[in-house]
């Protein structure tokens, strides 16, 4: 009994602040006459109206499609190339400076380049998202693959374990913690690049809608867009932890625990 109350108390303790902040926002904005800060009730009404009707297919679908396509291409290519570079010593040596340079180059700086060669449209947005995700994942995959325990590699050589088997059963699992870390950074970057590309040059999408609403002085719509984008950022991160990080790395915590770390 006591344990249950304690647990309920500790969950409540963690949730108080969120509830207080939302409630404070709701009540202080309720009678707001400030154009820039409409009441939360109006924001939520316009949220339902904007995003659960025609706005869903018109703006949410293209945004999320670009995000998913760009993220998938970037991750797959990044993992493949990264492991190849990480496992081949001379290639890694040769490409390290190039990779370090690209790591330091801010991804949004390349946005105008993608607008130039791909024009305004989904190709450009998929292009910039792919580029950003690809290099983050690549860097992490290189680090992961080069750190594979040398003894494991030697054992594989001694037992003449075929390359493809070695790749899927030794190299990939051994580098997975680092690759997953890269994929997680990549997901935040992909959401950011999705919004940035839509706000800079697009004709549809949630980011486009939000900035357009601001320029047309529809501040309630603008707020509904900002709330949706914030929610997408949070949900995408949560989904990643639940659907990828934990299932893929379920063995890792147990292992490091056993090692007494």
């Amino acid at each position, binding site marked *: 009994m006591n344990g249950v109350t304690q647990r309920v108390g500790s969950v409540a303790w963690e949730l108080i602040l969120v509830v207080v902040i939302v409630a404070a926002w709701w009540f202080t904005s309720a009678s707001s006459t400030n154009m820039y800060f409409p009441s939360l009730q109006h924001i939520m009404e316009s949220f339902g109206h904007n995003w659960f009707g025609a706005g869903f297919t018109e703006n949410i679908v293209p945004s999320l499609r670009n995000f998913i396509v760009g993220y998938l291409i970037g991750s797959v290519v990044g993992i493949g190339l990264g492991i190849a570079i990480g496992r081949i010593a001379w290639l890694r040596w040769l490409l*390290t400076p190039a990779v*370090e340079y690209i790591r*330091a180059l801010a991804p949004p700086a390349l946005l105008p*380049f993608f607008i*130039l060669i791909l024009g305004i449209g989904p190709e450009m947005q998929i292009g910039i998202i792919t580029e950003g995700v690809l290099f983050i994942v690549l860097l992490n995959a290189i680090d992961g693959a080069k750190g594979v325990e040398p003894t494991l590699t030697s054992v594989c050589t001694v037992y003449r374990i075929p390359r493809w088997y070695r790749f899927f059963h030794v190299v990939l699992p051994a580098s997975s913690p680092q690759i997953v870390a890269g994929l997680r950074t990549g997901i935040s970057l992909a959401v950011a690049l999705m919004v*940035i590309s839509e706000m800079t040059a697009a004709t549809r999408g949630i980011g486009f809608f939000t900035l357009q609403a*601001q320029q047309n002085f529809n501040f309630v719509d*603008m707020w509904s867009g900002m709330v949706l984008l*914030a929610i997408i950022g949070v949900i995408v991160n949560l989904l990643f932890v639940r659907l990828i990080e934990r299932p893929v790395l379920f063995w890792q915590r147990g292992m490091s625990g056993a090692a007494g770390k």
Partner: protein
Amino acid sequence: MSAPADIAARTRPATWRQRAATFFNMHPRVGFAIAVVIDLILFYVLWQVLTVTRVLPPRFFPTANAVLGRMGAVLVGSEFWITLWHTVESWGAGLIIGGVLGTLSGIVLGANDRAYRFCRVVIELMRPIPPVVILPLALLLLGVTLQIKLLLIFQGIFWIVLLQAVYGVRSVDKVMLETARVYGMSRTRQFFSIQLPGSLPFIVTGIRIAAIFSLIVSIVAELVGGAPGLGNDILRAMSAGDDRSMYSLILLTGVLGVIITAGFSMLERLILFWHPSQRKVSQ
């Protein structure tokens, strides 16, 4: 395998590949420097050949020589340095504000478990929101100013630095703290002699990541919000059809990133010279 053959294999003179491998293992910096030169030459030759032979459409890709010429002109003119200053100014100011406030809040929350759990959900909800999301509102309230860049940078780095500081303070060995308490060390002394140095590796890593993020967010604010700086100039060069300037500025933005990354890695080594992660011997 018979013993004599084994010995013969071992005493065989090393091939040039083995020698090269040993040399580069012993002098990683020399190997890196050689790779830098080769990469630069490869990049230049590849770009020049692909553009001169028109494999890359000339409409979008000027030759490497043309871009290098423009880059020289850009570097000589004063306009570039003013633009660069706008970016560097917001980068530095944003990093200091977000870094200091994030570190202080993180240390307080790291040392106080109840307070940390009280704020945890809000931190977890705020952290994944991309800074650019608040741009439309910030444009209304602040206009195209330095403050808008600082606000975006704050959203971009504050939570990262804060969480790093929290993890850092929590990573400090409990036994060490209890020992200090048993020996009657004052609370202040415990903080400065044990908790702060113990959490420093995490905090410094957080600041290094924040330094790169601060630059990225500065460029986003310039690109999307229209604040003066490199991001804005790259976009304007593109809109004006001046692709040589666009490529020059993108490449120079990369150089700025390299300088910042290298600088903060060096700072990390200097501050943490005593820490096992920075010492070769212990590894």
